[in-house]
């Protein structure tokens, strides 16, 4: 029997990023899918060894534009642990606010792209329209829309003024309001459900053994969210984990949708409890030793392994990003699905290839 073999990517309009799949199909049923990466590999981990540890903050932010805040957060937290720096409480809360704003923007972005993957253009536009509100407040508070550069070793780079805090509350409330409409469309619309329910099903055991992280794992019922570690100010903000059990694309959508509400709640709680005081401490000396720092990104757990050698340069910076952990699930989800589901499945892991390959 002759089977269809086609390339999928690296230049493909449904993929914002270059990822290549070799698909082998029968009619449109995928029987084999081999991912190929390397289109975004820059060698960033090596570059981090020649830049100094302050400059590396800007470098790790640019591992990925969508989760830059959390990348920087994981990195600076690692360095701070290594150097035993106790940062001010206000900085911790500010980091949480920015991180959660970033999570909202990332999830809205994902929801939009996901809508686009199953051909729902209006929904895509709606998501991105609402996301712009978050982008605006990001620009107002940090000076840039995407790569905000607010985290530095020893705290944050800037403070958020009280007017801006009020503005943030207004915006997140508005986003929450807008989400209601979209939630209905994402979770209840017949055509959308036709494309998501039962597609790319992962059982809890599969998700766990494949090392899935973040919303991928939580949608399969694996209660795993590193914010429970209580880094930054998460310990003080009571935080609810969103877990779904269906394990399909629908559940992943639901998890991310509900996380947006959770983010809104966290931001408001953080602003509520925001202590007064300094937002950064001066940093002296150089990092030395080994440390592992983990942070929950919008896409899941990111792991930083940092090895310092007492100079301003690092010996090794190793980043394991959430997408890297989620790609193996594709090996299980893709075979047996339809060609039309490939973009849906690819997006459902919320791929961030630039993270994956660094």
């Amino acid at each position, binding site marked *: 029997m002759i089977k269809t073999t086609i390339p999928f990517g*690296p*230049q*493909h*309009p449904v993929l*914002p*990023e*270059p990822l290549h799949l070799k698909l082998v199909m029968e009619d449109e049923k995928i029987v084999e899918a081999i991912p190929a990466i*390397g*289109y*975004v*590999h*820059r*060698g*960033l981990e*090596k*570059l981090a060894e*020649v830049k100094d540890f302050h400059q590396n903050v*800007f*470098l790790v932010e*640019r*591992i*990925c*534009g*969508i989760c*830059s805040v959390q990348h920087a957060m994981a990195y600076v937290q690692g360095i701070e642990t290594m150097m035993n720096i106790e940062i001010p409480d206000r900085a911790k809360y500010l980091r949480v606010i920015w991180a959660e704003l970033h999570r909202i923007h990332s999830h809205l*972005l994902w929801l*939009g*792209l996901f809508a686009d993957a199953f051909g729902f253009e209006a929904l*895509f*536009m709606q998501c*991105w*329209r609402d*996301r*712009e509100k978050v*982008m605006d407040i990001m620009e107002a508070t940090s000076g840039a*829309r*995407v*790569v905000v550069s607010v985290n530095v070793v020893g705290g944050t780079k800037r403070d958020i003024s009280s007017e801006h805090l009020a503005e943030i509350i207004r915006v997140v409330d508005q986003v929450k309001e807008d989400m209601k409409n979209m939630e209905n469309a994402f979770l209840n619309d017949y055509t959308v459900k036709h494309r998501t329910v039962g597609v790319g099903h992962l059982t809890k055991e599969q998700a766990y053994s494949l090392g899935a992280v973040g919303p991928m794992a939580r949608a399969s019922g694996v209660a795993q969210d590193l914010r429970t570690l209580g880094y930054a100010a998460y310990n003080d903000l009571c935080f609810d984990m969103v877990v779904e059990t269906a394990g399909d694309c629908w559940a992943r959508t639901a998890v991310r949708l509900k996380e947006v509400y959770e983010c809104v709640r966290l931001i408001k709680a953080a602003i509520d409890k925001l202590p007064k005081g300094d937002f950064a401490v001066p940093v002296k000396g150089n990092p030395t030793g080994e440390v592992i720092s983990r942070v929950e990104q919008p896409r899941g757990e990111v792991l930083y392994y940092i090895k310092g050698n007492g100079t301003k340069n690092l010996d090794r910076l190793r980043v394991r990003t959430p997408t890297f952990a989620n790609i193996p699930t594709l090996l299980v989800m893709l075979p047996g699905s339809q060609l039309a589901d490939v973009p849906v499945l690819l997006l459902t892991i919320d791929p*961030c290839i*630039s993270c994956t390959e660094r």
Partner: protein
Amino acid sequence: MGLMNTSRMKSPWIIHVNCTACNGCDIEVVAALTPMFDVERFGIVNVGNPKHADVMVVTGCVNPKTARVLKNIYDQMPEPKLVLAIGACGGTGGIFAECYNVLGGPDKVIPVDAYVPGCPPRPEAIIDGAVAALGLFEAKAKAMKEKAKKAAEKAKAEA
């Protein structure tokens, strides 16, 4: 101007090529397509297919693997075509220029017509870049015609 040139200026279809970008520019390019900035006002549509596209929007620096892809996509676009490089990486490789697997900006592989600075540039900057690039269409079309004429003459001479 002429009807053809007006049409060219008013209907630039783009193909967005992500070389080795960090996603920052990509999401800003996509944001430019969405309601808040809506570049369809200028007739800009993301067609995602080099054979239909007039303007190639490149984000990110180039590594050996994407260099191959970029060249290939560029060759598949019909003349007259423009290339718009987005962001610091699109210009010089930006912060990644010193990485071992980075060759530099896209201009190492294909001719780039306009650069949009920023890391990442705002959607407004991308719109500015697109508008600036469109002005180059007339010259490009002329060059295309001359090239075709030369090829025809050459074929005639050979025959």
